[in-house]
């Protein structure tokens, strides 16, 4: 009887310990997977924000060039812009000489964040004009 009692005691203590170990193991594995998911989610979320910002900068440049369509020439340029701790490199290239009928415009954005290097670019055509900066008059 005494032996049996001791045997039961050791068995029940063991299952309590095993329960704790198993639960800790499950929790650790689950938390590791969830942490990985969380990090990926956070990275993609910030990437979306960066693309939106870059797109806004590229659009802004195209609108500026479109407004100054009378002074467009065959040129290219580059500048750095900073927004929420990310430095964006904005480059543009205009093909077509002053006085030509239209200019091909390419604006590309480049930036580096925690997930690596990224690029986006927008292309458009802007009509040429030699009559000044009036955006409503194409002559």
């Amino acid at each position, binding site marked *: 009887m005494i032996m049996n009692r001791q045997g039961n005691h050791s068995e029940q203590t063991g299952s309590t310990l095993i329960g704790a170990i198993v639960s800790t193991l*499950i929790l650790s594995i689950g938390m590791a997977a969830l942490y990985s998911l969380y990090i990926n989610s956070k990275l993609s979320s910030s990437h979306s924000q960066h693309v939106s910002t870059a797109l806004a900068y590229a659009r802004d440049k195209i609108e500026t060039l479109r407004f100054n369509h009378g002074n467009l020439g065959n040129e290219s340029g580059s500048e750095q812009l900073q927004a929420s701790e990310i430095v964006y490199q904005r480059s543009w290239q205009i093909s077509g000489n002053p006085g030509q009928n239209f200019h091909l415009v390419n604006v590309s954005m480049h930036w580096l964040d925690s997930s690596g290097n990224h690029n986006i670019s927008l292309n458009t055509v802007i009509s040429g004009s030699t009559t000044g900066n009036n955006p409503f008059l*194409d002559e």
Partner: protein
Amino acid sequence: MIVLPNRVKHRQQSANGLATLLFCMILLASATTLIFTMTRTSLAEQRIMGNEYRIETLRQACEAGLDYGHIWLRLNEPIWQTESNGQHTFSLPLSADNLGLSDTIHIQINYLSSDINSPFIQIHAQASQNNDRHYHMRQFIHYTVINSHANETGFMAQVITVPGTWHDYE
């Protein structure tokens, strides 16, 4: 000091183990729900961003089409075709290759005039990608032929954009 019998002690320890396991499971389930909610938000943001980029690309292609349409109309005379509803239309054959843009975007420019003698012409540009995405832009212009003697000095027309008539839609 009260000494509990062994059977009671064992039951209590067993219950403690079960409580730990349950607590961990509940914690894990809560964390999973939270992370999945965040992931869904992140996925929605990614989709919005992807759509924004594609639409902006198409919008710039449409703008390019409108600009090109202005230039073409300034230097060329459209040959109007009368539709069954009495309107006069002219389509400008154009592909993205002509404009040096991405070859995955196709641009179509249409001119529409309700009256052949009216100085107002509507330019309609449509940009489409290989998938089902389309983007349209339209604008009214005031059109005056300055020099129609094409054989002598070349055709020339004045094209003035009518402010406030620009409209875009997907």
